[in-house]
Every structure is written in structure tokens, then in C-alpha cells.
């Protein structure tokens, strides 16, 4: 092992029945570097991390860690921790009802007793030295998400940590919080900790990482110095093909200008979660709700679909007044809704891909008319092919698919119902750039070819500018502006959010 290397993985292979998840992958982490691990969904990032943390046992290959002679095998997460490999996951896995210090030391003590005083003193010192804005005696749930994430990191690096794995740590943070987290990462880097940073956000990779390792389909594409690798090239390496005009996916269509028929219209629509608002969408129109996180954009579309309890308002579909007070009624009026939180509201994890695909259509068809197995297979096969869903079979539980493929299954579920109006709330969150582009293309194709109306919500404003012909801007649960045509620029959106839409 070279000097300065903390971790070397060589020729790592691992197979699951039917799939070679990793094929002779190498990975090297140096002391005091931030090393981004990149790849599309199913590239093998998570698998590699899980080999390193002892969740999966590798079939072939060697792992070496600085200071430990010979090859090592990691059998369990606890063992990984003992070897100095700590992991912080995307979802915070701490106890919100305990104090910050308790969270940092829980499960660490040797005996039965807890040296409270010492614990709080040491926690305070560590928080200070890492510049984390939290007090040891504060309840964790009173901290912001970012600070909670930082406490998780503080817990992880507390004891002789050589390798710190951050698995999508930024996906639920806003920009300012991300910057705070980056500060902490740079701090740890200066102390000689090697950090493996897994993320989907390209900008963040360039903001903070020194090196990038790219995986694709379980194989190593290469290791690059971040400064030497242009962004476009990174994307093409991840996707394995040259970029084909990601900037403009397809020409947009302006339904407003065409004066197409209004499909759905709501006046003063409100729910337990949203204030009354007016909204309409024309046939073949792609529009979107935009605004900062928590501005009420998701609540609006949930109200349209009656996902929350509707409390008032008038709704017309194709100029006919209708009452939509539960999801099934929205569905019967040709509305489909892909929810923001895929895990909580979208997938039925233990059911098969097939059952997940036919679910919505089956419900619409009715309790006494189940699809035959053959018919269900045919539907599933069709959409697995159309959307290129990577699954071992139609019988595979959806929970075992990668995030992007789960999302495609949910998308397939709604496309199968042939909705006239489809609501997509964050369909591209947490999925790789290739799938993102595919979904954007699909949105435009559906609106143009089938005249489907689509409402699209995304945290990535570029994505919305690329696809929507009308943007509804929200702030603090109110609609503060509407942008069309030439106004559809990032500046305008930000100005509207900040200034109040004049």
C-alpha cells in the first residue's frame, strides 16, 4: 500500500442470483481526500458501500486498510466501525427524542452506568471543534435537518475514524445547509479523514470533492481528478454514451398560446393542508408549481388529487362540474398522481413489480373484476419494456429495485391508467441523470403526442424550465405569480419567489 492511502479495494466482485452486481471493481481512498462515488442507479455504488460496511460479503477481491496488516474481511457493520469505517446514511438514523450528546454516545458505553458529566463535556468539546451549531443538552428534534445530519457525522467520526462514508447526505437539505455540511466535510478532510461521498448532485461533487470514481453496470469506468474532468464528460461517463442535447430535450408546446381546451379547472380549492387556490390546465399543457421547499407546491397538487381531505372549492373537468373528494374520484376523472415521497406514498414494497404496475388500473376496474394473471403479465411486460425498467422478473418485489427503477414502476402504474391529466411530484428526485432525461423526454412526448395534460414539480428549476410552458410560483403557501413564454428564466423565477411577483 502506498503512503497516504487509507483504503484499497481491489478486484471486488459480488453476484446476486441473476445479476453480477460488481465486477472486479477497484477503489482507492487517500488520507484527507473527499472522493465522490458516482454512477447511475444500479451502477453498484450502494453495493460497493455495503461490501465496505459489512452488509454484503464479497465473492472475490481484497480490501486493505492502513495500519492493519494483510487483507481484511468485513463481516458486520460493527466490525466495519471497529476498523475505522463509519457510515452516515441519507435518512437520519438517530433518536429525535434524545439529546444531542446522548445521540452521539448511545450504544458506545462499556458498562451499565453512564458517565453523564463526562459525556456532555466531551460532546460539547467535539461539537465545538467541528463547529457544529448544537448544544449537547439540546433535544435532537429541535435541531434542523442539516444539524441532525452533522450530529450523525460527529457520532461517526468520534472514535478513530479513518474512512467516513456519506451516502446521499444532502438530498433533504437546502442550499445553505448543504454549505454548512460542506464546511464540516472540509474540516474533517483537513484532519486526515478519507471521505467517500455518494450523491446525485453534480454541482456538489464539483464543489467539494477531490477525486471521482465512476461506476457503471457494476463495472469500474475509472478514477478521475475532479479538476481535470469537465462536467459534461462526467455525465457521459456515467451514462456510457455521448450526451445528446440534454439542454433542450425537445421543443415545448405552448397550450396557452394555442388556446387548447381547458381540461381541469379549480376555483378556491382548499384542503386541510393547503390554502384556497385557483388553478387550471389545458389539454396537452405541461405546467408546474415551483417555489422553495415547504412553499406549499406539493400540498396544492395533493389537493387536486384529493390525497388530503378537500375542504372546499369548485372543480370542473372538461367544463363539467365534478366533486373530487377522494383519490378514486380523481382517478375516474382521468387524473393520475405520482407522489413526492415514493417510499411512503408510492410503492407497495413487498408486492411484485407486476402487482405494483397494475394496482391503480385494477382499482379503477373494480373489486369484482380482477385482471387475469396473463393480462397482468402482459401489462407489466409492456411497460417494463417501454420504460426500460431493470428488474429480474415481473415477480420481483418492487422494494428490491433501485430508486430510479421503482420510480419508473410507479410511472408505469399511472401511464397504464391512460390518464388525461397526470401530476408528477418530484418524479426525478434521487434518481440518476440518465433516467431524469428519460422522464423529461417522456413528459414532453406524452403532452405532444397524446395531448395529455401534465403538472410537473421538481426542486431542480432547470428541469422545470426545460419542460413547462407555464410556471406557477409559490411562496409561503400562496401563489405569488405565474410565468409564461419569455418570462421562463431562472432569474424571473427567483425574482418572483423573492419579490412577490410584480
Amino acid at each position, binding site marked *: 500500500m502506498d503512503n497516504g492511502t487509507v483504503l484499497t479495494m481491489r478486484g471486488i466482485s459480488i453476484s446476486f442470483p441473476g445479476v453480477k452486481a460488481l465486477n472486479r471493481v477497484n477503489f482507492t481512498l487517500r488520507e484527507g481526500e473527499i472522493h465522490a462515488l458516482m454512477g447511475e442507479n444500479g451502477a453498484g455504488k450502494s453495493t460497493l458501500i455495503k461490501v465496505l460496511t459489512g452488509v454484503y460479503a464479497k465473492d472475490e477481491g481484497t480490501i486493505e486498510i492502513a495500519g492493519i496488516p494483510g487483507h481484511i474481511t468485513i463481516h458486520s457493520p460493527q466490525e466495519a466501525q471497529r476498523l475505522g469505517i463509519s457510515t452516515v446514511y441519507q435518512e437520519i438514523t438517530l433518536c429525535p427524542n434524545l439529546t444531542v450528546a446522548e445521540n452521539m454516545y448511545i450504544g458506545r458505553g462499556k458498562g451499565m452506568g453512564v458517565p453523564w458529566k463526562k459525556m456532555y463535556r466531551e460532546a460539547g468539546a467535539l461539537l465545538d471543534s467541528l463547529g457544529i451549531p448544537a448544544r449537547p443538552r439540546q433535544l435532537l428534534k429541535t435541531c434542523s435537518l442539516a444539524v441532525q445530519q452533522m450530529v450523525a457525522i460527529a457520532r461517526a467520526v468520534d472514535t478513530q475514524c479513518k474512512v467516513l462514508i456519506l451516502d446521499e447526505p444532502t438530498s433533504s437539505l437546502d442550499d445553505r445547509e448543504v454549505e454548512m455540511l460542506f464546511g464540516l466535510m472540509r474540516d474533517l478532510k483537513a484532519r486526515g479523514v478519507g471521505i467517500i461521498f455518494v450523491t446525485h448532485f453534480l454541482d456538489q461533487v464539483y464543489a467539494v470533492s477531490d477525486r471521482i470514481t465512476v461506476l457503471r453496470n457494476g463495472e469500474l469506468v475509472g478514477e478521475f481528478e475532479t479538476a481535470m474532468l469537465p462536467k459534461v464528460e462526467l455525465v457521459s461517463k456515467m451514462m456510457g454514451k455521448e450526451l445528446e442535447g440534454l439542454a433542450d430535450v425537445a421543443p415545448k408546446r405552448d397550450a396557452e398560446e394555442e388556446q387548447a381546451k381547458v381540461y381541469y379547472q379549480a376555483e378556491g380549492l382548499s384542503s386541510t393542508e393547503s390554502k384556497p387556490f385557483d388553478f387550471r390546465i389545458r389539454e396537452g399543457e405541461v405546467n408546474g408549481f415551483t417555489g422553495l421547499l415547504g412553499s406549499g407546491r406539493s400540498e396544492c397538487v395533493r389537493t387536486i388529487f384529493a390525497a388530503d381531505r378537500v375542504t372546499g372549492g369548485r372543480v370542473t373537468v372538461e367544463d363539467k362540474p365534478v366533486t373530487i373528494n377522494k383519490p378514486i374520484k380523481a382517478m375516474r376523472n382521468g387524473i393520475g398522481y405520482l407522489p413526492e415521497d415514493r417510499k411512503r406514498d408510492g410503492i407497495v414494497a413487498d408486492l411484485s413489480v407486476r402487482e405494483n404496475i397494475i394496482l391503480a388500473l385494477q382499482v379503477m376496474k373494480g373489486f369484482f373484476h380482477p385482471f387475469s394473471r396473463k393480462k397482468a403479465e402482459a401489462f407489466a411486460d409492456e411497460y417494463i419494456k417501454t420504460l426500460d425498467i431493470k428488474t*429480474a422478473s415481473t415477480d420481483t418485489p418492487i422494494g428490491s429495485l433501485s430508486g430510479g427503477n421503482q420510480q419508473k414502476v410507479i410511472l408505469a402504474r399511472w401511464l397504464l391508467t391512460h390518464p388525461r391529466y397526470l401530476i408528477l411530484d418530484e418524479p426525478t428526485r434521487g434518481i440518476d441523470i440518465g433516467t431524469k432525461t428519460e422522464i423529461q423526454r417522456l413528459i414532453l412526448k406524452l403532452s405532444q403526442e397524446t395531448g395529455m395534460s401534465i403538472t410537473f414539480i421538481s426542486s431542480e428549476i432547470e428541469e422545470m424550465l426545460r419542460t413547462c410552458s407555464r410556471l406557477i410560483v409559490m411562496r409561503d403557501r400562496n401563489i405569488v405569480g405565474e410565468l409564461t413564454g419569455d418570462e421562463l428564466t431562472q432569474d424571473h423565477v427567483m425574482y418572483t419567489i423573492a419579490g412577490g411577483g410584480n
Partner: protein
Amino acid sequence: MGKTEKGKSSFFQKNSQLLVPLIALMLLVIFNLIRDPGFFSIELVNDNAGNPVLQGNLISILNGASELAILAMGMTLVTAASGGQDISVGCLAAIAGSVFIKVLKSGPITPWLVLGGVAACCLVAMCFGAFNGTLVSVFRVQPMIATLILFTCGRSIAYWINGGATPTVESDIVKAIGGFIPGFPIPAPILIVVLMGIFFALLFRFTTLSMYLQAVGINNNAARLNGINAVGVKLLAFVLLGLCCAVSGVIATGRLQLVNHETLLINIEMDAILAVAIGGNSLGGGKFKMIGSVIGAYIIQALTVTLYAMKVSSTDVKAYKAVVIILLVVLGSPVVKRWFGSMRNKLAVAGSRKEAA
């Protein structure tokens, strides 16, 4: 990178949860055959009335487990949809049995009156099921707490129905329900289990019930957002369990031709839950296989009959049963399953590598 061949997974890959219960049942059979090669022999004899009837340990296992098997069917549905269990099934069966007898006592016993009695007790039990179901689905009370109410007061209600007496009925029809239909050598309770099995099989075949139950049990939110009436599905599960309680109550009443509200199917709720668990179903809800629960019920009964055949005293039987059940539950636990799963994966990978070489 090879893909597994589609649609060619073996029976046990698709039904891996049935592996442990089936093996357990097989071991019980083998154990008994070694102990006594004639254990499962069945003879055709004539009963007192001169009708041909089948006799033997196998018949008494199948017959004796009838009520349990039917309750396990219903319990499976409730478990799948609500992720909890109904502990009032024994009491509800007692109520149903009391209603049955009450109707029979109302006049000369004709086939129509018996049919009316069955219908009445099914209706009453399904109403009580709906009561439990409403508490669970609308008011979101935990199933065990919600059904604790009926568990506590159910036998008192049964007591009131017949004014505190333990009435008996003299009727060949009622006797036949718990015994033999004259001229037909297989015990009637076994036939009723088969009928209930067919009823649920048809229900699963011609409705989307099984998919809805699982979807609601796995992810209530997602089920609701896909238009499923999650409250209704849970309610329906409890109503169907109510039906199962009524049927077992009728069988149990038929066996003795009397209803004793204090002892009728006492403590059966725990065996019913156990049968669901032994059948490899998660008590946390979600995916289920009803046949597993039925096998679970027969395992419990076979175990009891075996122990009695070995001259174990009835007090000791419970302790022996517990030992076997610990084994089964541990073998069927997620930890052991995962271990078996990873072993199988390794074998499969090794196998495919050998093929490739």
C-alpha cells in the same frame, strides 16, 4: 451477467414461506409412523345408528382441527390488512353458538329452522366483526386493544342470550353438523372446512381482495392514493373473520348439541394466531398465504393428538407443545430465513459459475 429464466422458479421459491410448516407437518407424520406404523390407519366402521363412518388418528386430527382451521383463515385476513390480531374470536364463536341455539329453541327443529339459525348467527357475528373492524379501521385503535373489549365481555353477552342456561338441543341435524351426515363416512366439520376453503378460494379468484388486503397491510398510504378504500378493506377483513367465528361456533355447538358459553372454544384465539404465525405469515401484516395458516392449524392439532397418543398427560401437553412451537417459530423467523436465503444465493451463484466454467 445472466438473467434468471423467467417463470421457471420452482414451487418452493414461490412458496418459500410454506417450507417450514410443510416440513414440520412431514416430520410429525414420519415421527408418528416410526413410533407406531399403524398410527395413520383408517378404518371404516359402523356407528351406533349403523351408518358407515371413518375412524382413525388422521380423521380425528382433521376433524378436531376444523374450528381452528376456519378461524385461522379469517385471522390471516385480519392480520394481513391490519397488522394486528383479533383476540375475541373464541368469545365471538360462543356468542354465535348461543344465537344458533336460541334460534333452534324457538320452535320445532326443521331443516329450515337450522338454516335460519346458521344465517342468524352468521349475521350477528359479522355485525360484531364490523364493530371490531370499525374500531380498528375508522378509529385506528390497535387491533389487540380493540378486540380486547369483546374478549372481555363476549362470554357475558353469550350468557345473556340464553338467559344464563346452557341449553341442549335434541336434533339429528345439529348432531350431523358436529358429527357425521348419515350415510357419508367423512366427518361433517372436515367438509365444512373444505367448503370454507372453496369460499375463500373463489373470493380470491373473483375479486381483488387478496391484492387489496396486502396493499393496505404493506403501505396504507400508497393503497389509499391508488384509490383503494383502505378503511373498507380492513372492515371487510374483520367482517369475514366474524363469518369464520360463526361457522366455528356452529360446528363446536353441533359437536355437543349444547352451548356452554364459558367453555366453548375457550383459549382458541391464541392457537388461531399461532396457526397464522406457524404458516409463515408475518404477524405484522402484508403478504400472506392462507393455506399456510390452515397447515399451521393442522400442525397444532396433529401435535396435540400425537402427544395424547404418547400418553402425555393433558397438563404436560401444553409444555411439550410450547417446545415444538418455539422450534417452528425460530425456524420461520426472518433471521433464519435470511440465513437460508443467503445460503441459497451462494449455492445458486456457485452453480451458475460451474455452468459457466
